[in-house]
């Protein structure tokens, strides 16, 4: 009897795992397909049913050497890095303050509410302001716009990390003669370094992925990568191959770094409602 029960448990587990593998296939199929498409020679790109063909590097060569995509990559990198640095600079002390001093739940929550604001409301005045300052089609505009959602997210993330550092740590430092501020940046900041890294990566990914603001605020040379990708949207086969390459360039780095921040993500997204 015992043995049968055991066996039943095992077969049902196999069944469950096969369901998971189906889900895995659904998730992976578009990635595989886009990768295969990027290696197709131009005349085969528009043919759906070809899986065996002579691998061609022409799409990759075209995109990397003869298109604006490298410039777009640099633009996206600059925007992401500058946005995240500013967000960390202002978000870090504030998050510490939220975590250590009494602040009402509502104040804390307003940080999250700021992130939820629909971009439609921000874009009109930001656009008009930049238009009057002649900063349309520059990266400054996008950085400004991205700050509206990267700052709240990064701050929210960091509150959670500071909450986890025991107060005794800075108490001890202050007994040893540090001022509270010194205790914060000499003792606490180094302790939350992994948290800073996770928040930075997450903020960067949000900025890197945005298309709405960038679509309206950039053009020509200043286009970010997602805007440039949207530009490949014609149905001509050749463009499709190039588009596949550009998409891979946009998603592969993000997928790689995402594996490192996944375990911190629940806190960042769920806003303290869910704790690991």
């Amino acid at each position, binding site marked *: 009897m015992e043995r049968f029960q055991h066996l039943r448990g095992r077969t049902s587990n196999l069944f469950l795992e096969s369901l*998971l593998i189906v889900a895995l296939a659904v998730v992976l199929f578009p990635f595989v397909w886009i990768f295969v498409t990027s290696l197709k020679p131009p005349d085969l790109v528009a043919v759906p049913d070809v899986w065996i063909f002579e691998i061609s590097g022409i799409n990759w060569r075209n995109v990397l050497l003869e298109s604006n995509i490298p410039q777009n990559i640099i633009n996206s990198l600059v925007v992401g890095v500058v946005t995240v640095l500013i967000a960390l600079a202002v978000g870090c002390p504030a998050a510490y303050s939220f975590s250590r001093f009494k602040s009402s739940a509502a104040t804390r929550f307003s940080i999250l509410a*700021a992130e939820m604001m629909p971009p439609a409301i921000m874009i009109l005045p930001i656009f008009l302001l930049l238009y009057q300052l002649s900063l349309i089609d520059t990266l400054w505009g996008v950085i400004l716009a991205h700050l*509206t959602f990267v700052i709240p997210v990064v701050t929210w993330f960091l509150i959670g990390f500071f909450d986890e550092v025991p107060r005794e740590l800075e108490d001890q430092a202050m007994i040893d003669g540090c001022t509270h501020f010194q205790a914060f940046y000499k003792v606490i900041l180094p302790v939350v370094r992994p948290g800073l890294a996770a928040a930075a990566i997450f903020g960067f990914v949000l900025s890197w992925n945005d298309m709405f603001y960038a679509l309206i605020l950039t053009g020509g040379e200043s286009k970010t990568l997602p805007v440039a990708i949207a530009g490949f949207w014609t149905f001509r086969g050749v463009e499709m191959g190039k588009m596949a390459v550009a*998409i891979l360039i946009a998603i592969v780095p993000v*997928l790689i770094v995402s594996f490192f921040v*996944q375990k911190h993500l629940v806190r960042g997204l769920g806003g303290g409602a869910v704790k690991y």
Partner: protein
Amino acid sequence: MQKPDLSLQYRLMLPLAVVLLAVMAYPLIFSAWISLHDYRLTRLTDVQFRGWQNYLGLIENQQFWTAITNTMTFVVGAVSMEFVLGFSLALLLHRVRRFQNFYRAILLSPMFITPIAVGLMFRFLLNIQLGVIPHYLDKIGIYVDWFGIDLALFSLMLIDTWQWTPFMLLMLLAGLESLPKAPFEAARVDGASPWLIFRRITLPMMRPVILVALIIRGLDAFKVFEYVYAITRGGPGDSTETILFHIYKVGFRFFRMGEAASMAYVLIVITLILVTALYWSMKRR
């Protein structure tokens, strides 16, 4: 020990307050002002005050209501599918211990990539002439035009489900893992069936997490833009015209910014209602 330095609390918050005020408060106030004017980018020297006219105009604006209805349909449809699938996957992953981290890492991956890439990938995957999926469906005798007038909005929901079910999975799996073990063991000892355990213990205990996940995802789904921009541009007809895409069109294609701003403010009200709901459901924990 030194006394905690109270003024430090405010000094540490100052940079954040200044920057947020600059990048958020200013736009919020300015767009409220715009929404009360006949503000057109093509007529910047002649901006007329219109009072509540822009808002009143929305009541009879058929396109606006179509966009709202489309967006609501999209949010309810997509978020329900994501919830059911995400919860199922979370329960599955919670049970399967072998390779759990591997499965989880792969299953979560769609939520990290840029939505415009997802939109374009599916535009080509589902395209009636070039796409792989219609091609194979055709071979087994199923002919579906995924972006035709009947199915376009539903196809966009499916794409959203592909990308955002991982978010539900992430939240709900974390919720499941943080549940105390004792009630489950007690129920099992008492011989309760898995279905009864799920209904009477798992579901009630997961309620707060479920609520938070649904609201956050709902708020986010409300902002759907990239799939529409990449694939249908609102069509066929206006069957996939969502609210953010409509505002984008009115503001940046037709340059009627006053009207666009008033729509955006209606959107803010909807958002605030949902955010308040989120606040209460989080505070109750």
